[in-house]
């Protein structure tokens, strides 16, 4: 299994090809397409499970590396590899991919196109997390973008075109900035290379290049390195999404079909923070230190502002979308906390946990939407009496989202706070209001949707049927992960620990006296 990462990345592409050759005229072709997609994602999941067990937990180095020439003329190489930073994301992608297929079972419009694009999207996502060459990274980044555009734009809700275009333009802006930054780095390499790992070593840059000389430029007096850092950061911050680049998210979420919302919140958002940790941190550590407070401020704004906005939402999906903004703030706050290991570990774990928890919430919102055909929070009431299983699942998911101990969200938030309180005490204290606000908007939602007297609109016998076994099957794997990691987080933390330890050392030595007491 030396090519495990290639298999993992391109298996969905094989599945996509298989789906494309299934003739639509065939009777039961819809079912066949679904099962091919399910089989493909199951295969990916199995490979991911193997990866999970085969991963060496004591090493901080890249593992399962694949390295081959791709476009030798530009020194572009096909390099894949995972380390502690990406392994959780790769696993998450496969899990969410599988769950998403189950959740997509009720798609009836252009099934073939939907699942083909879906699998293409999965290839793009896995590729982004595995790629170690900037060109490859960029290609996967864009590969992921296009299916997303179509999946929102074709299978979305009433304002799908607006949402899809907004998502597309925002992300495109981000990728353009990223491309510029990549080229800036490439042009300053001693030996031409796009390797992300090679760029992490300052010795590989030309000593006389304008990047290394780093003279202030006309642009607000920022140095070239800082400009490159900012270009990367904005590119990634749009994906996170960090305030004030977040407004594409609620629209995209509200309009996207359920499974796509799940992927959007579960995986795509993580690419922003993953990118910052993968690119900005090791390649430009000094600049990262320089902008650490800036990130922390944005993080706190994300947490508090996102939570307050969530409280004002009238639509269930946009509420969850804003809660994502709030939760991604914890990731950003954690990753700039370098006094101890807790911050970085918490941030990466929070990426994973938020992926599973928000995916769960979106799945459940999708369930209620399928039944009621609307998502207005005020349009429900007393559903618990009508659909107890569904309501219990939703309550558990909400509890996980608000960081209840025993569920995974708590561990990561706690670690983030343990790190942040040591490094940015004031910000941590402000951010802690997010704990209360999170409880407030989620519990208020539960009260309005599930408690109180039953809304008469759903009083009829089959007005709000109980959650179906298929829908349960899509939620339960995530819930199991959430509970297991909430009780016993070591399996996840062991994976990421060594890599983050060495990353932390990089950051601490870059920060020097500024950060250590």
């Amino acid at each position, binding site marked *: 299994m030396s090519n495990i990462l290639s298999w993992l990345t391109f298996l969905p592409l094989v599945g996509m090809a298989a789906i494309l050759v299934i003739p639509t005229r065939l009777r039961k072709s819809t079912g066949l397409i679904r099962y091919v997609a399910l089989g493909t994602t199951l295969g990916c999941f199995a490979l991911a499970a193997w990866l999970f067990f085969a991963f060496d937990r004591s090493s901080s180095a890249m593992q399962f590396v694949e390295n081959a020439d791709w476009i030798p003329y530009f020194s572009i190489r096909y390099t894949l590899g995972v380390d502690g930073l990406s392994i959780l994301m790769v696993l998450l992608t496969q899990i969410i991919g599988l769950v998403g297929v189950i959740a997509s079972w009720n798609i009836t419009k252009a099934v073939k196109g939907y699942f083909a694009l879906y699998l293409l999207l999965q290839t793009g996502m896995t590729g982004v997390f595995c790629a170690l060459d900037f060109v490859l990274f960029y290609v996967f980044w864009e590969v992921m973008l296009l299916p997303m555009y179509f999946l929102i734009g074709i299978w979305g809700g009433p304002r799908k075109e607006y949402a899809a275009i907004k998502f597309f*333009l925002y992300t495109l802006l981000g990728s353009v900035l990223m491309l510029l930054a990549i080229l800036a780095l490439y042009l300053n390499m001693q030996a031409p290379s796009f390797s992300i790992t090679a760029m992490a070593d300052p010795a590989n840059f030309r000593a006389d290049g304008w990047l290394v000389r780093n003279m202030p430029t006309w642009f607000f007096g920022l140095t070239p390195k800082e400009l490159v850092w900012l270009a990367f950061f904005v590119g990634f911050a749009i994906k996170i999404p960090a305030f004030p680049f977040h407004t594409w998210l609620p629209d995209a979420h509200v309009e996207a079909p359920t499974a796509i919302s799940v992927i959007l919140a579960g995986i795509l958002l993580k690419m922003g923070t993953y990118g910052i940790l993968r690119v900005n941190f090791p390649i430009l550590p000094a600049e990262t230190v320089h902008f650490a407070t800036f990130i922390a401020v944005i993080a706190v704004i994300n947490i508090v502002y996102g939570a307050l906005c969530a409280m004002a939402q009238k639509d269930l999906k946009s509420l969850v979308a804003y809660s994502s903004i709030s939760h991604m703030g914890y990731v950003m706050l954690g990753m700039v906390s370098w006094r101890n290991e807790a911050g970085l570990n918490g941030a990466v774990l929070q990426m994973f946990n938020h992926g599973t928890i928000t995916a769960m919430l979106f799945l459940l919102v999708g369930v209620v939407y399928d039944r009621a055909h609307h998502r207005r929070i005020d349009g429900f009431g007393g559903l618990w009496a009508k659909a107890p299983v569904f309501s219990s699942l939703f309550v558990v998911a909400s509890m996980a989202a608000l960081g209840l101990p025993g569920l995974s969200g708590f561990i990561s938030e706690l670690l983030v706070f343990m790190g942040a309180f040591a490094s940015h005490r004031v910000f941590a204290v402000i951010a802690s209001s997010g704990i209360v606000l999170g409880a407030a908007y989620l519990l208020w939602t539960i009260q309005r949707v599930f408690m109180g007297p039953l809304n008469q609109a759903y009083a009829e016998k089959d007005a709000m049927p109980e959650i179906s076994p298929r829908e349960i099957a899509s939620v339960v794997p995530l819930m199991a992960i959430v509970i297991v990691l909430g009780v016993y987080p*070591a399996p996840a933390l062991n994976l990421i620990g060594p890599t983050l330890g060495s990353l932390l050392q990089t950051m601490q030595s870059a920060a020097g006296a500024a950060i250590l007491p």
Partner: protein
Amino acid sequence: METTITTYALILALPLVAFVVQVFFGKRLPRGGDWLVIGAICIDLLLSLRVFFGALFFSSFAGTPFVWNLRGWLGDAGTGVLALSTGILVDNVTAMMLVVVTSCSTLIFLFSTGYMAGHRRYSLFFAYLSLFAFSMLLLVLGNNLIALFMGWELVGLSSYLLIGFLFEEPVVAPDIVPASACKKAFITNRIGDTGFLLGILTLFSFTGKIAYGDVFEAVRNGAFGDHTTLLTVAGILLFCGAMAKSAQFPLHVWLPDAMAGPTPVSALIHAATMVAAGVYMVARLYPLFTPDALTFIAYVGAFTALFGATIALVMNDIKRVLAYSTISQLGYMVFGLGVGAYSAGLFHLMTHAFFKALLFLAAGSVIHAMHRAYHYAGLEWNPRSRENDAQDMRNMDGLRKAMPVTFATTAVAVLAISGVPFTSGFLSKDMILGGAFAFGFVENPQHFLIPVFGFAAAVLTAFYMARLLIMTFLGTNRMAERGQEALRESPWNMTVPLVLLAVLCGWFWYNPDPTTIFAKGWVSSFLTPPASAVPQTLVAAPADAHHAAHVAAMLVSLSCAGAGFFAAWMLGRRGAISLEHWRLSGSRVYYLLANKYYVDELYNRTVVAGMVQVSRILGWFDKVLVDGVVNATGRFQTGLSELSGFVDRYGVDGLVNALAGFVRDTGNEVRQIQTGRIQNYVVYATVGLIVLIVVTGM
């Protein structure tokens, strides 16, 4: 009597397993699976008793508490945060708490089989109860701050679920809506928990440890250095958690509303055990509190004791009276700890757990009976009036004949809570008041308000409890004939717990000497205050100073109780015990108390409304401004592109179009040739051939 981890693992696991089984299979089990939950908690009780007696008679934890660590909980890393482990710590305090929790739980679970009989979520109710028992035991057994916090929030969750258990009822008592009461409880607790968490973070950031022993050790070794103010702040932040959970002013507002839960829940969670968690936490972290922090705690507790008691005076809903009484009693425990009467505070925790659980269960028994009677008589309660309200004491009167067991046990509890000799309450309350007396009148005269509040609260306690007893059980019942026929004692599974709890309200369990003058009982030696880890601690009140104050305090508190009873008796004799005339007189004081000092209104108008308003404004801001900027940028660019599109269309494109038009027209002409008729092609070919030959030939 050595104990092993197996015992504690079993204690923790049994309720958890029962919970899981109940959730998934409860409905399918016979009797809704209540026997499973009760069986689990009974075994827990036996195990706890074994631990407790081992500690009491064999001093198994003397000097060295039982500690067990679960390594590799966060990770296998050798150092740093990820090396933190969780685990179990058992000492005398834990042993006592175990017994209190499991014994109260056992009796109340049993009571619930009668009270909740026939409810359609009967099995789920027991599942929640089991979850609560697990969380509470986790809270008690944990050996570190994180485990404490986890248990802390999990009991909050079970409390939330149980308060909201009757979520579909629009209203269960005047002004109490279960759906919003549970939310209020959770959020209020979250506010306190945030403080608690920040306190934990402060301790962690200075010590790098989370286990109690390690933290104490680090603080003792000067982890805080000169930042003693921060240590005080950390203590107060930690106490914020206790303020919310133990319903101390100003975070007490959730507890009266928590009475929306079924009465056994109120008894177990909101009177006996969970709300005492705050007290347990203060006791557990006692070495960390600086004198300033302790003084703060003492003031909060003393004020809450009086504050709760005053409101309890005028409440008419029987559960409301008990709720404010609980707030007041918790204040007692808290200020007992604050003034340094460590063992007294914990002692009162224990005795209060029993007599308050008894009071609530008795109230539950009464409400149950009233409901049945109203139901039998075909009388419906209109939530807008007190008429036919099964919880309103003004509708009760004279139940002693119909419900002798309930009456007798309630009377015992009333005596206990009022601090009448020969009851457990007398012993514990007396110790607290003695400590307060010594602290406020003898050692720190500037803090004289603390004992004054304490004694004033004692007067009021005796008064409102006597009022409760008189209004509920004495006099003659005014219910309609038909209803009276149906009024009868509750079934055995409800009365047995009452009787057992009443037995536990006797003095002899705690001290053979009912006056505590000659013997101090096992409590003061069993629950000795731990050595403070704070650098310059307040000079602990010398034992004899406490003792000297003891007799005086006892006399004062006895006269307080007597005064309270006397007042109640006087009013009862004049038939004015319901305080209706006071209400009718339009007294401002009455309305202030009846409206609970308008604290809820204050919060609703300021904090809640403010937050909602801010969120609305930000939501608008986000939609209109932030997104507006984005859309405006988009529109600007659309405009730009339209402009360039115009140029393109009529400038550049015009040229291209002209060319294309030419080509198209030509093509249209030439197209005519393509007839698809083969004979034409033959003609063309031949003509072409001729032309070719002619041309080349020339």
